[in-house]
Every structure is written in structure tokens, then in C-alpha cells.
């Protein structure tokens, strides 16, 4: 997935406020799913592709990022082809491919602080109900911050186990990963406190 992969830049998409980007994504999503036009959906794919490349993200990165979603899209297409029609499969895959490309482009072009600030603003009407928007914003930022840390921990555990001749075993992998992640979370909580955050 592309989450957490903000890349600094000066593209038009970088300059747009986060709210406008997400509103635009919402409008495109609604239009794609409310207008049952295969031609429109197919046309939207290269447009979304162009938007993605306009952020300055290199083509090889796009290919790397799309590997996972491509498998999902293939499964969706196969499902439609078997239980519905190929035309339905093409329409659905084109819709999802457009949205994945646009979401990736927005992720690349929007700092997480802007996303978190937007979420805080959107949640601010819920304050009287006891919702703390700042805490939600911080939780989002922390979740994204943790992705590369967890990936690094996973790599270390895999290497340590391989060095000791252990074959890949999901249980042996995830138990130490969870323990290490909880420990890291504990230390991060200390750091947040130490830096004067009082939520």
C-alpha cells in the first residue's frame, strides 16, 4: 500500500489544500460509481495515471506500488468474469484502478500533518460528544509513523530466525513482532509525554 509515502514536491497537487484533494477524490468516486459508463471509467484510468505522474513520483515506483492492488484487481475481474460478465469486470476494475491511482497520488502529495489537521477539523463538531479531535489526529499520524518501524522490526526478526536456521513460521514471526511493537509503543508514549503533549 501507499500509505505513509509522502514525497516533498511542488506539483499542483502538492499545492492544493488537503481538504480540496479529498473532496475531489470523493466527487470522482461518486461520479464513477453513479454513472454506469464503461467508456467514462476506461477514460478515467489514463487521466488518473497522468495525475499520479504529475506529482513527480517515478514510474518504477508506480509499478512497485501497484503490484499488490493489481492482484486484488485481477481477483475482482475473475470474479466478475465467472459469475457476471467480462464487461462488468472491465467496468469495476477501471473504477477501482482510477481510485487507487488517485488515492496514491494524493498520499504522495499531502503531508500527514495536513491530513491529520483535516481529520481534526472534520471531527471538531463532535467535541461536545466527548470526541478529542487532536487525539484522533495524533493516532493517525502515529499509525503511519509505525508502518516503517514495524516493517523494520519484521525484517530483524526474520533475519534473526533465519540466522538460527528457523524456517518461516507465521506464529514465530508475529509473537515477537507484537511484543516488540508494544515495547516500542510504550517508549513512544514516554517520548510523547516527555515532549510536553498532554492531549
Amino acid at each position, binding site marked *: 500500500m501507499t500509505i505513509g*509515502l509522502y514525497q*516533498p514536491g511542488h506539483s499542483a497537487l502538492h499545492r492544493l489544500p488537503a481538504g480540496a484533494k479529498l473532496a475531489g477524490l470523493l466527487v470522482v468516486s461518486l461520479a464513477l460509481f453513479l454513472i454506469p459508463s464503461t467508456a467514462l471509467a476506461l477514460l478515467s484510468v489514463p487521466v488518473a495515471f497522468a495525475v499520479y505522474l504529475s506529482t513527480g513520483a517515478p514510474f518504477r515506483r508506480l509499478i512497485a506500488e501497484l503490484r499488490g492492488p493489481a492482484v486484488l484487481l485481477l481477483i475482482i475481474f475473475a470474479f466478475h468474469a465467472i459469475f457476471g460478465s467480462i464487461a462488468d469486470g472491465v467496468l469495476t476494475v477501471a473504477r477501482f484502478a482510477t481510485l487507487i491511482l488517485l488515492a496514491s497520488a494524493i498520499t504522495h502529495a499531502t503531508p500527514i500533518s495536513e491530513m491529520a489537521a483535516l481529520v481534526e477539523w472534520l471531527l471538531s463538531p463532535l467535541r461536545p460528544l466527548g470526541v478529542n479531535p487532536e487525539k484522533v489526529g495524533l493516532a493517525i*499520524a502515529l499509525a503511519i*509513523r509505525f508502518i516503517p*518501524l514495524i516493517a523494520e522490526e519484521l525484517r530483524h526478526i526474520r533475519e534473526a530466525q533465519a540466522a538460527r536456521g528457523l524456517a518461516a513460521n507465521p506464529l514465530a514471526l508475529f509473537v515477537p513482532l507484537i511484543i516488540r511493537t508494544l515495547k516500542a509503543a510504550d*517508549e513512544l508514549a514516554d517520548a510523547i509525554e*516527555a*515532549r*510536553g503533549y*498532554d492531549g
Partner: protein
Amino acid sequence: MIVLEAVSHDFDGRPVLVDIDLTLAERRIGIVGANGSGKSTFARLLNGLVVPNHGHVLIDGIDTRKDVKAIRRKVGFVFQNPDHQIVMPIVAEDMAFGLKARKIPKGEIDGRIDAALARYGLGHLRERPVHTLSGGEKQLVALSAVLVTEPTIIVFDEPTTLLDLRNRNRVAEAIDALPHPTIVVTHDLDLLSGFERVLMIADGRVAADGRPADVLAFYREQMR
């Protein structure tokens, strides 16, 4: 000035620090001790991360038990692992984190971030994702994120443990150049050359306290 009055602390009944009375007024103070000796808990007392079960810790006259907010404004804390200190995914966002908590205006935040990064020649990292930095860069970013909050005292908990020699030297130079009173918990004894005072903690007590040459010689002897 830091004053510890009859400080004792335990975790689940296991004593970690025992009856410590100290006044710390020097500009450079080092803390050494074996693993599990209580030195990290000692460091955490100074920022209010740990409040002692008994006794008082006073920072410039303020009790950590009574006004932890004021203590955290005064005492910056740099952790051993910058990956567990850096909260936000982008360098500038992380440096702004502590300032936003203090309700500093955005224009001032930007100025402080630029100045702190420039201090270590890290201006080019401003918009970089944190996970793409080297260990030394992360530690300097973690230090910069503390400096932007303008603390009066800085506590380091094993700041060079995870670094290679080049990055260790960069961090050592950065610590050396700080104008702030600084307390450094470390196993890196060379880091303490030029310090004014070193404490050795053993079994939760101050086992030695004095000039670095004397305390470190004693510590080396004890560790044989």
C-alpha cells in the same frame, strides 16, 4: 539546578533507586552504571517521566510531582532510540510536534525549525520522511526536536548506543557544543571526557560521585 531529596523508587516492590540525596548544578554531568543499575530511571526522574515513590525531585525549585507541565518545558529529554522518540512521519512535522503542544504560533514554529536544523547542517532533511534517515541523522533530528522547544536543561539517555563511530562522533560534537546544562546517561565513557562531574549508579544507589577521571577509574575497576 536539580535537587533530589531522599528519593527512592521501586517497580512492583523491586527497589530501583534507594535514598538518593543530590544537588546537581554543574554544566556537564555524566551518569554511568551497569545495565539494570537504575540510571535510566534516574534520568527519567529529571523530566517527570518517573515520579518517585518517596522523596522529591526539584528542578529550579519546581517539584516534578506538583507541576509536571512546567518540568517538561524546562527539561528536554533525548532517548536512546530516536525511532522511539520521533513521533511524526516527516522531519519538520516531528519538530513542530512539541511546539504545537506548547501552542506556539505557526510562523514562529517554522522559524525555530529552520534555525534548529541549520545548527547541525540538516536543513536539506526538513521535508524528508523520517524512516529514510540514517541513525545519526535521526538522533540529531531527535536532538533538534528537543532544542526547538528551548529547554533550560537537556537529559540524554544513552544517545550514542545505537550509532556507528562517525554518527557517534557527530552526536558527541553536538552535545559538546550545547550551551545548556546537560546530563548524559551513557556506557560510552569517552563521551564524558571534559565533563565536570560523573555519578556512578549501582544497585539503585550513588556508588561514586566526583571528577570523571576518579569515578570512571573506579567504575572500570568495578566492572572487571
